[in-house]
C-alpha cells in the first residue's frame, strides 16, 4: 500500500507506467480508483500515470476539519515532490479540474499542460452546502443519492438505456469505497468555496478544456457546459473541445473520444 505521510494525514497513491507524468484528479468526493477502469491502461503505455485518493476519500486520511481545493492542491503537490514528478500533464475532472487550475497557479513548475474536463472556476451564487443536494441525500438516502445522481449527471438517458453494463461497471468502482457522508459534505463545501475566476488569466500553460455538450445539470448555480465556456474565455492559451452527445462521465463509460482528443492535444501543443 503506497502511502505518503504528509504533515497531518497519510495520502494513498498509485503510480503506473513510465514516461512524462500524467496526474489524474477525480471529481468531488471520489477516490482515485475510477481512473483504473480505462485511463491507467490507456496512458500508462507511454506515461507515468499518478493517481491518489483525496483526503476524506478512499484509503487516505480523513480528518474532521474544513477542507479546501487549496488543501487538495497542496496534497497533490506534496505527492509530486515525493515522486520527483515535474512538468506533468494534469488532467482534472470536475472538482479535480478546479484543483488542477490551482496547481498550475501555485506550483507552475510542476505543470506542463492542463486538461480541464467538465469543470469551472467558481460557483458564484452558492457558497456552503447546496440545499438541493442536502434535500435529495436525506430524501433518497446517501448511497442512492450518489448512485442516482451519478447516473443522471453522468450519462444521457439514451446512453444509460443502451449501455447499462458500462454504467454499472463504473458505478461498481465509484460506489465500492464510498466515503462517509461527512467527507462528501466536506468536499462539497470545498468545491462550492473554490474561486479562481480572477486568476484564470494567470494560467500560462497550454490548456485543453473538455466538456460534454449535454452536461447541463445544475446542482447549485451553474452547469459544467457554461462554466467550461468561462474557463475557455479566461485562460489565455486554451482550446475548448465539446464532446457531442456526452454529459459528465464520458471518461468512465465512453472514453474513446476523450482519449483521442487528449492524445492529439499532448502531441500538438
Amino acid at each position: 500500500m503506497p502511502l505518503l505521510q504528509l504533515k497531518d494525514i497519510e495520502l494513498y497513491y498509485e503510480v503506473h507506467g513510465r514516461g512524462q507524468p500524467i496526474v489524474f484528479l477525480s471529481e468531488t468526493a471520489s477516490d482515485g480508483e475510477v481512473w483504473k477502469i480505462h485511463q491507467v491502461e490507456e496512458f500508462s503505455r507511454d506515461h507515468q500515470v499518478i493517481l491518489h485518493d483525496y483526503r476524506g476519500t478512499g484509503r487516505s486520511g480523513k480528518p474532521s476539519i474544513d477542507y479546501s481545493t487549496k488543501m487538495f492542491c497542496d496534497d497533490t503537490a506534496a505527492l509530486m515532490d515525493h515522486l520527483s514528478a515535474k512538468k506533468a500533464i494534469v488532467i482534472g475532472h470536475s472538482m479535480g479540474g478546479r484543483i488542477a487550475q490551482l496547481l498550475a497557479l501555485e506550483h507552475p513548475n510542476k505543470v506542463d499542460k492542463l486538461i480541464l474536463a467538465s469543470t469551472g472556476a467558481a460557483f458564484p451564487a452558492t457558497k456552503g452546502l447546496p440545499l438541493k443536494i442536502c434535500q435529495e441525500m436525506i430524501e433518497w438516502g446517501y448511497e442512492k443519492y450518489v448512485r442516482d445522481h451519478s447516473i443522471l449527471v453522468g450519462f444521457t438517458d439514451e446512453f444509460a438505456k443502451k449501455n447499462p453494463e458500462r454504467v454499472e461497471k463504473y458505478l461498481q468502482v465509484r460506489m465500492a469505497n464510498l466515503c462517509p457522508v461527512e467527507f462528501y459534505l466536506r468536499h462539497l463545501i470545498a468545491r462550492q468555496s473554490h474561486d479562481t475566476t480572477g486568476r484564470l488569466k494567470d494560467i500560462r500553460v497550454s490548456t485543453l478544456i473538455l466538456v460534454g455538450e449535454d452536461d447541463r445539470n445544475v446542482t447549485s448555480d451553474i452547469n459544467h457546459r457554461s462554466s467550461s465556456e468561462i474557463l475557455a474565455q479566461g485562460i489565455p492559451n486554451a482550446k475548448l473541445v465539446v464532446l457531442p452527445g456526452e454529459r459528465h462521465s464520458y471518461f468512465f463509460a465512453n472514453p474513446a473520444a476523450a482519449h483521442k482528443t487528449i492524445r492529439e492535444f499532448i502531441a500538438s501543443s
Partner: protein
Amino acid sequence: MPYVKTKDGVDIYYEAFGEGTPLLFLSETACDGAVWKIYQIPEFGRDHRVIIFDYRGTGLSGKPSAKYSTEMFANDAAAVLDHLGLEDAVVCGHSMGGRVAQLLALDHPRKVSKLILASSGAAHPGETGIPLRIAKEMVEMGYEKYVREHTIVVGWTETYAQQHMDLIEKYLKVRMANLCPVEFYFRHVLARQEHDTSGRLKDIKVPTLIFVGDDDHFVVSDLSHRAGTDILAKGIPNSKLVVLPGERHSYFYTEPEKAHGIMRDFLKSKMMQGNRNVS
C-alpha cells in the same frame, strides 16, 4: 380556517385566543405555531389576546420554494397583526422566533410594546449556509429521527429526560405531528444562519426580558443559546436577563410554570414600562 394573505401572495395560517393585551408567540426554527397550544394558550389566553401563526414553510401556511429570511418572517408576523388590527403587542419569541421578534421591534415598531427573547441570539457569526453537522446527522439518521433526537438533546438535560419522558413525549407528539418537508426545514435553517441584528441591538428601545436555560450550551453551528443570550443582554439597552436553573432549550413545553412566572412578573412590572421604538 383563518388565513392572512401576505403582499407576496403567501397564505399565513394564524389563530387568536382570549381578550386583553395582545401577546404574540413566535416559534423556533421550522416549527409551526401549534406548540404554544400545549401550555401558553391556556395560561395567557385567560387575560390576553394571544396570537400564534405558522411560519411560511411550516404547518398550514403556504410553502413557496424560495429563499426565506427572518425579515420575511417578521413581515408575515406584522401582516397577521395588521389583519387583526393589533398594535402594541407583547412579542415572545423562542430561539429563531426571538430573532424574528427583534426584527419586528426594529422594523415594525408600532406593533411591539415589549419583547420577550427566550433562548435566542443576534447572529451566528461563524457560519453561514447549512451547517455541516445538521446535514450530516440528517443524512445519517433520517429527517424525522434527527428532528426528534435533536429536539430531545437540545431541549432537556439527560437527568430531566430520564425522569420526565412522559412530558417530553407529550410535546414531541405536537412538534412532530405536522413536520414540514425537509426542504423547508433547510430554508428555515438558512434564514436563521443569515440573521444578524448584532449592530442593531442598541436600537431596540422597548422593555425586553431575556431568558435562557443555564444549561443551553449545545452548539449546532457556532454559538450556544447561553452565549447568544449574553450578547443580547449586553446589547439591548432596556433589557433584563433571567437565567433558568437546570433548564436547556425547551422549558416552555415541559416546565412552563418557571417561564410563565417570570413572564407575568415582567408583564406587570412598572419599572420596565419604558419607551416604545416610536414616540
